[in-house]
């Protein structure tokens, strides 16, 4: 039987060192799976694999020791149980996310919903090399946004509501950036210090801070053979549409300027950060 490894790999079946054995990579969005999906995975690992699964560093699930002749059956049974096969190779990979505002008290944005939308829009898209999105709900950065080709971090754009403030001082202490102080019966914000963490909003007993969810984007992160931190390029973005336009611009930039086999970071460095910035500013209509 002729084996087309390229198409196997696109479908998330990765050849193991043990001949004719494959590790099946599953599609997971935002690190979230239902109990039903987990049950399906467990059953397949037992029936077709060797009874174990591997959890990858990017919230993926792989079922190893799937035999070549079982691949079609495994695909069919996964799909019947609501589980899709993931992708490998030069395309947009698993979109990772922390729990975000749906679950975590610190969350500034709904990371689950956003990861689903991002996955819907980009998952599997062919590009010069692999391309990763990661979404983290706040400055705590549990999901390590800047490790990704495009990282999205939730922030809070804050506004003080004088009339509701009891001048208790809780927010001044809660702020770790020393951005807040009490002066003449007013809370003063030093905007240059504020990192949009939202701790003032979350801690205020009088709800005297308004926090508007916002997106902090980073581009060109890498955490493999080479390690580099994604960079900001544009200021904090206030709405989802602009955020998506900026992400579109980044993906288009890579598809236009990337050389096959080269990561986004290398394309940016070869073409210039200014070129990326200009492309994003034009597409997203944001200006520093």
């Amino acid at each position, binding site marked *: 039987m002729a084996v087309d490894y390229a198409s196997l790999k696109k479908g998330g079946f990765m050849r193991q060192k043990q001949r004719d054995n494959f590790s099946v990579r599953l599609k997971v969005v935002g690190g979230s799976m239902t109990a039903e999906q987990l049950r399906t995975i467990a059953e397949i690992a037992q029936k077709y694999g060797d009874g174990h699964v591997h959890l990858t560093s990017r919230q993926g699930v792989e079922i190893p020791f799937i035999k070549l002749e079982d691949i079609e059956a495994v695909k069919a049974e996964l799909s019947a149980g609501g589980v899709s096969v993931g992708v490998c190779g030069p395309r947009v990979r698993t979109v990772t996310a922390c729990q975000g505002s749906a679950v975590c*008290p610190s969350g500034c944005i709904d990371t689950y919903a956003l990861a689903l939308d991002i996955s819907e829009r980009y998952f599997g898209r062919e590009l010069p090399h692999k391309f990763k999105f990661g979404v983290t709900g706040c400055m705590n950065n549990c999901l390590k946004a800047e490790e990704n080709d495009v990282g999205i971090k939730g922030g809070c754009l804050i506004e003080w509501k004088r009339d509701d403030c009891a001048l*208790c001082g*809780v927010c001044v*202490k809660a702020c*770790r950036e020393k951005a807040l102080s009490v002066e003449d019966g007013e809370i003063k914000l030093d905007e240059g210090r504020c990192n949009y963490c939202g701790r003032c909003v*979350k*801690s*205020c007993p009088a709800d005297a801070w308004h926090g508007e969810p916002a997106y902090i984007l980073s581009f060109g992160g890498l955490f493999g053979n080479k390690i580099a931190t994604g960079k900001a390029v544009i200021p904090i973005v206030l709405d989802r549409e602009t955020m998506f336009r900026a992400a579109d611009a980044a993906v288009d930039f890579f598809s236009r300027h990337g050389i096959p086999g080269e990561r986004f970071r290398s394309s940016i460095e070869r073409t210039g950060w200014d070129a990326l910035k200009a492309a994003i500013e034009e597409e997203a209509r944001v200006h520093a």
Partner: protein
Amino acid sequence: MRDLGADASVDITDVVCPVTFVKTKIALEELDPGQTISIRMNDGEPVRNVPRSVKEEGHRILKLTDNRDGTYSLIVRKSADQA
């Protein structure tokens, strides 16, 4: 440091996170709804986080006082709908 006027007081300057919150929570549980407590805590991590945790538990923060000895006193009114 006792805060005159509060119904009870608890000192959490002798413990670290997460026991700061556990001790606070136990002290609050011993109160009747609507009663007040003065919670004495250290500057730094406790004063950054304990007020927020107390708020998230649904209690009402009345005041935060700087004791000027490296500690703060948080005055809290126990939520009316928590027995």
